[in-house]
């Protein structure tokens, strides 16, 4: 709402009203009886102003009906009557208004400044557009799904609040040749985004920028230069399967398939796995899953349901040196670890802290050993398999030993009675 003091000379920027096929407007100067149409006119019509500026407007009655004067006229702005001290009669047929320190427009279609007759009927109206020019958009980020398209997102300058409708246009061109192109599919992944669906070249850089325009001016972002191959992402890995590893109560095996759209190009894809206990919201992430399509999760709680997801980063595609962009996570896949057969506190095995495979001194040392093996040998997977086989053998032989000791104990008792004849 404007301050209640007359301000300096108006700085209104009169924007010519657009000529549009308004099929319905009555002929100017031929008002209907009793309709109040066009018996007065407000000037300026539909001005555009900066926040904090001033406006001087006039309402001039036509003199229809004869003898009509500006006596008794008053102003409203967005339905609120303006204080009389802001108005003054310039002459018998003209009422002036002075508004200072204007606030930003309340609605994008413009603030409604209306001139009323004494009886409250509407004589004329004008819409004020008060706002700010756009600031430079920034933080443009783009990604290509399977090298087929390009989606970009940006942040509007000044958080986008200009109080005026601001149009954002994403432009792009090949860096060294070609004309400017304009993206056409907006709001695909949020209000400030655009999708270019086709006709994109590889192995050559694009220049991309965003232009913001409103009634008060325009602004252009910095130019982002990129090669499509450097911003490739893909679909989540399909066919994620999670299964038990034999009877091992603290492990699950995760397998997946390379994303099919890029499977012929993913020479260096890396993957990430995350997993959580069924009734927890805390995910644990396994980062170091390079170009493999399987992984063993260890150090898990026995008898527990886990949800597992996998995602892929197709970095290095076609020789790109950039980091690549992670895909979305795959749909969660659930599996449960076997229940522990060993008695222990709480009825289950003591789970390693944090569920990490490396917790516990023995496992820590083993991990270090296997890490060394990985660097110096080509059989790290074989090593884990061997280790698991060894563990399973150990458990089995532990049981057998217990049984033997039981037999042996009874045998000793028998032997004490003397050797069998």
């Amino acid at each position: 709402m404007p301050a209640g003091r007359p301000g300096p000379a108006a700085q209104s920027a009169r924007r010519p009203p657009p000529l549009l096929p308004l099929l319905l407007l009555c002929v100017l100067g031929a008002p209907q009886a009793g309709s109040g149409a066009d018996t007065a006119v407000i000037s300026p019509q539909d001005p555009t102003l900066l926040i904090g500026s001033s406006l001087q407007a006039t309402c001039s009655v036509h003199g229809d009906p004869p003898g009509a004067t500006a006596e008794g006229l008053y102003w409203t702005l967005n339905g609120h009557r303006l204080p009389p001290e802001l108005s003054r009669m310039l002459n018998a047929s003209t009422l002036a208004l002075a508004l200072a320190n204007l606030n930003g427009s309340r609605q994008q279609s413009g603030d409604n400044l209306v001139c009323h007759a004494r009886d409250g009927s509407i004589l004329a109206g004008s819409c004020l557009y008060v706002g700010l020019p756009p600031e430079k958009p920034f933080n443009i980020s783009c990604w290509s799904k399977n090298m087929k398209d390009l989606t970009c997102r940006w942040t509007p300058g000044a958080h986008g609040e200009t109080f005026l409708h601001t149009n954002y246009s994403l432009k792009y061109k090949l860096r060294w040749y070609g004309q400017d192109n304009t993206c056409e599919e907006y709001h695909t992944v949020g209000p400030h985004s655009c999708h270019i669906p086709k006709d994109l070249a590889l192995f050559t850089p694009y220049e991309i920028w965003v232009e913001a325009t409103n009634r008060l001016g325009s602004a252009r972002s910095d130019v982002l230069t990129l090669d499509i191959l450097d911003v490739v992402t893909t679909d989540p890995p399909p066919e994620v399967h999670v299964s038990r590893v034999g009877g091992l109560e603290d492990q699950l095996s995760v397998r997946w398939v390379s994303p099919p759209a890029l499977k012929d190009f993913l020479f260096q894809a890396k993957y990430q796995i995350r997993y959580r206990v069924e009734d927890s919201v805390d995910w644990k992430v396994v980062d170091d899953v390079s170009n493999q399509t399987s992984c063993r999760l260890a150090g898990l709680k026995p008898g527990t349901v886990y949800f597992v997801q996998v995602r892929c980063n197709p970095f290095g595609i076609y020789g790109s040196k950039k980091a690549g962009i992670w895909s979305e996570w795959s749909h969660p896949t659930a599996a449960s670890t076997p229940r522990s057969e060993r008695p222990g506190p709480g009825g289950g095995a003591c789970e390693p802290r944090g569920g990490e495979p490396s917790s516990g001194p023995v496992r820590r040392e083993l991990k270090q050993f296997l890490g060394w093996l990985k660097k110096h040998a080509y059989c790290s997977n074989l090593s884990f398999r061997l280790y698991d086989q060894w563990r399973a053998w150990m458990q089995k032989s532990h049981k057998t030993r217990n049984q033997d000791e039981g037999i042996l104990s009874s045998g000793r008792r028998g032997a004490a009675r003397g050797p069998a004849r």
Partner: protein
Amino acid sequence: MSRREGSLEDPQADSSISPLPHLESKIQQTHSLARLLTKYAEQLLQEYVQHQGDPFGLPGFSPPRLPVADLSAPAPGHAGLPVPERLRLDEAALAALPPLLDVVRRRQAELNPRALRLLRRLEDAARQARALGAAVEAVLAALGAETRGPRPEPAAAAMAAATATAGVFPAKVLGLRVCGLYREWVSRTEADLGQLAPGGPA
């Protein structure tokens, strides 16, 4: 609603089957459609005033009733006319509304480009007016009443008005007027069909 359903002159029809149930069914369907569109028209009006800002939508807001090319509100004596004549006037108004609603939608697309629901409602209203008008015309045909002949396109008068300079406030007022007329005419059509529907006064 298919015109085929409204045909009373199928030579294959069994002459012992009275056409009245078909006519009643058609009237009832059209009446239901009009009732539904009356509700939608009210929602359109609410959505429209919301996006124009105050004083639009305030109680007592009484803008100038600008005349609209080729369309006026139902006359005070409308309810006293014979039902077929009322339906003819309803049908004529419903046929005139779609291009007017289209113009309002185009203007609102400039003034309120982010008001997607409003723009969608305006687009739907044009389609719904066409559908209801066609249904009313089918009812009139089934009643054996004459329908109006082809109407002259309002292009000449419209284009003359189109060249006039149009400010934003008058455009808002005019859009309100068109949405108001749409609501008045679908409501009027519902009432007129109600006279013919089973259980109605007719």
